[in-house]
Structure formats: structure tokens, C-alpha cells
């Protein structure tokens, strides 16, 4: 299929592995889905310590379930990316381990305290979900298919994050202050979650023309703010002064994006941000530490199925 035909036909779930897609499309889709898959994995590793640090059994169970879900999302997405024939799952996992694999800005920052967890589990996941809901109608069918499952599970994550936030903001004065401090630390990163403004985004044009991406960075950010600013305020969080956010008469918001630290953002985007490198390395170490589990499972499968390991169903 030539690129013109792709652009003409580009609609929701229009293309699948049955179609002969041009290399530009397959590369762009791989880049996007691999980024998404990496982010699921890195997000899971960021939250993993809080299974242990959770303040109650219920929270421990919920965090454990959530981390398990996110790793599963990563696997689903690597599978959707693999189906484009550009990179294998192993190549993508290797890239993530050796620091070439790119992932979401928010997951480059370490999380130190329990009060920070709703910043990821409520705001970042809420932002992710806004974006993922639009990707149910992406043009690469296996990607959209993965989004069905991801969005199904993600509602629990966001609402559980909201429960933690609610608990903190109705707790002691100390808890409220700590939650506010965490919010101030995370807020600019959350705003940057949707990437640079459309004018600065290098990949948006093509991805949108071939139906991979459904909404622009700016549209998604606006939609997120419209829901989550009122939510934050309702729980008693004060929106930080930077970046300046103005409310328009029609209820929408304008963000003074040039007040945000885009140098740091692009440093992160290149995997050159120091704390983020720590995240990448600690995941790599954890992976290596449990290599024996994967090996013994592989050996077991080898014995059972004689080398033809069955692939997970889509």
C-alpha cells in the first residue's frame, strides 16, 4: 500500500497485519507503541516499592494488582508493536534496558514518599487514560485492541488513586500539607505529560495523517485540565502559580507553556536526565535479578512443548 492510500483510508482500526503497510507507517507506529509499552513498564517499576510501603492491607493489595496490570499492559503493547514487523519484543526490551528506549516524562522522576502516589495513580493515570481512550480508534488495529483491555482495567487505577488522594486530603493537617507539597512538585510534570505544544511537536503531523494519533497534544491537555483542575480543587489542593493557567469564558483553560522547563523535558526525552537514568538502571538490575525465573519457565516450556512456545492470545 502506498502512503497516499494509507492517508486516504486512515480510519479507526483500519489497518492490521493482513495489510501490506509502507515502512514509514510501520516505523511511526512502532515508535509510538514502543514508547507506550516502555511507559507502562517504567510506571510499574516506579510504583512497585509502594506495594511494600502501603499503609494498609487494602492499599497493598490494590497496588499489587495495579502494578501487575501495568506490566501486563506493557506486554500487550509490545505484542501490538511486534506485529508491525520492525522490532521484536526482545529488541524493544533490550533497548529499554540499555537506555535507548524512550518513555513518558513523569516516569523519569523518582517517587520517594507515599503521599506522592496519587500524583501518579490519580493525575498521571488520569491523563494517560484521557489519551488512551482516544487511541481506541487508532488506525493500527492491534494497538486499538490492546487499548480495549487497557482502558477496561485502567478505571480501577484512576479511582483507586483518587481514593488515596481523598484519604490524604481528609486526613491530618500534616497529611494535607504533604499532599499539597507533592502536588506542587508534580504539577508542572503532569502538565508536560502531553508533550510540547503542537507547534513544537515533531512527530504529530504524520502520526495524525495516517490515523495513528487521534487528538493533538494541546487538545488532550485541555480536555484533561477541564476535568482534573476542578477535581484537584474539590479535594482542597491549591493549583500552583507556575505555569500560569487562565480560565476562559467558555470554561476552557489556557496554559502559559513557555513558563515550563522544556530544557529538562527534552533532556528527559533523550534519556539524559540523571534521576531518570537511575530509574532505567534499577529496572535493569531488577530484571537481571529475576533472570533465573524466566529461564526456569523457558526450560519448563521447552520440556512441555518442545521448542514451539505458544504465543499469548491477543
Amino acid at each position, binding site marked *: 500500500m502506498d502512503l497516499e492510500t494509507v492517508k486516504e483510508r486512515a480510519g479507526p482500526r483500519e489497518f492490521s497485519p493482513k495489510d501490506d503497510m509502507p515502512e514509514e507507517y510501520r516505523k511511526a507506529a512502532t515508535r509510538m507503541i514502543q514508547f507506550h509499552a516502555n511507559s507502562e513498564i517504567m510506571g510499574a517499576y516506579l510504583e512497585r516499592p509502594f506495594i511494600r510501603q502501603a499503609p494498609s492491607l487494602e492499599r497493598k493489595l*490494590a497496588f499489587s494488582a495495579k502494578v501487575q496490570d501495568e506490566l501486563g499492559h506493557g506486554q500487550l503493547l509490545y505484542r501490538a508493536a511486534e506485529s508491525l514487523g520492525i522490532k521484536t519484543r526482545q529488541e524493544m526490551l533490550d533497548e529499554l534496558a540499555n537506555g535507548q528506549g524512550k518513555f513518558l516524562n513523569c516516569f523519569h522522576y523518582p517517587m520517594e514518599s507515599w503521599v506522592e502516589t496519587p500524583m501518579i495513580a490519580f493525575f498521571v493515570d488520569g491523563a494517560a487514560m484521557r489519551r488512551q481512550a482516544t487511541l481506541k480508534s487508532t488506525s493500527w488495529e492491534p494497538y486499538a485492541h490492546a487499548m480495549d483491555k487497557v*482502558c477496561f482495567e485502567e*478505571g480501577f487505577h484512576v479511582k483507586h488513586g*483518587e481514593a488515596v488522594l481523598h484519604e490524604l486530603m481528609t486526613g491530618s493537617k500534616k497529611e494535607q500539607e504533604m499532599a499539597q507539597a507533592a502536588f506542587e512538585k508534580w504539577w508542572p510534570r503532569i502538565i508536560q505529560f502531553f508533550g510540547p505544544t503542537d507547534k513544537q511537536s515533531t512527530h504529530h503531523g504524520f502520526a495524525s495523517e495516517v490515523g495513528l494519533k487521534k487528538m493533538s497534544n494541546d487538545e488532550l491537555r485541555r480536555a484533561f485540565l477541564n476535568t482534573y483542575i476542578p477535581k484537584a480543587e474539590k479535594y482542597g489542593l491549591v493549583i500552583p502559580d507556575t505555569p500560569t493557567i487562565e480560565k476562559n469564558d467558555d470554561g476552557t483553560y489556557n496554559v502559559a507553556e513557555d513558563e515550563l522547563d522544556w530544557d529538562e523535558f527534552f533532556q528527559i526525552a533523550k534519556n539524559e536526565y540523571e534521576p531518570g537514568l537511575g530509574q532505567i538502571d534499577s529496572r535493569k538490575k531488577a530484571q537481571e535479578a529475576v533472570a533465573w525465573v524466566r529461564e526456569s519457565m523457558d526450560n519448563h516450556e521447552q520440556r512441555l512443548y518442545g521448542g514451539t512456545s505458544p504465543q499469548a492470545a491477543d
Partner: protein
Amino acid sequence: MIWEVFRQKKAGDYHTHCGNVHAPDREMALLFAEVQHARRMPTNSLWVVPKDEIGEVDTEDVAFGGTTDKSYRWAMTYNFEAAAEEVAASEDEQAEAERQRKAVVDGDD
């Protein structure tokens, strides 16, 4: 000879056990199953299986799962008004899945 009968209501559903028939061979078992178990019930397909061929393990031998309360992993557990549209949509899907799970557990057809 006893044959256990499994009925599938519509294409794509599971075959679920619905009773048994006495018959000397498979052909007769299918005929009896048709008359006894699908004459009045909406049915897409029937299986018959010799009773002796069925393996069983029960609560005397093992501790089965499925008794843990896993409500902590469903959106419906965390109640706040007015979730974002896409979060509410996810919760609706989860609620629907729970209804279907309950229907299977309770044996509703």
C-alpha cells in the same frame, strides 16, 4: 451406559452441563440428548460424553480458589462522584463484566 450432556445456548457460548441420558452408543445418546435436553430450550449445539471419561477433583482433595474478596481491584469499590468521562466508561465496562461473572457463578442462563 450413562452419557453426560452439555448444551450450548448460542454460538460462541460455552457448553454447560445440563444432565445425562442412558443410551447404548454415541448415536443414540445424541438422539436422546436432543429430545430430552434441547426440545424446549434454545440450543445451538450439544455434546455427549461417556460418564466414565470424565475426570473429577473436588473440595475433599484440594483447596480451590475463587473465595478471596477481590473487590479492591474494581473501580466500583472506589466511589466518588463524577469521574472523568473515560474513567466512568471503564467503570461501566467493569460493572458489566461483574454482572456477567455473577451470572456464570450463580448459574443463570
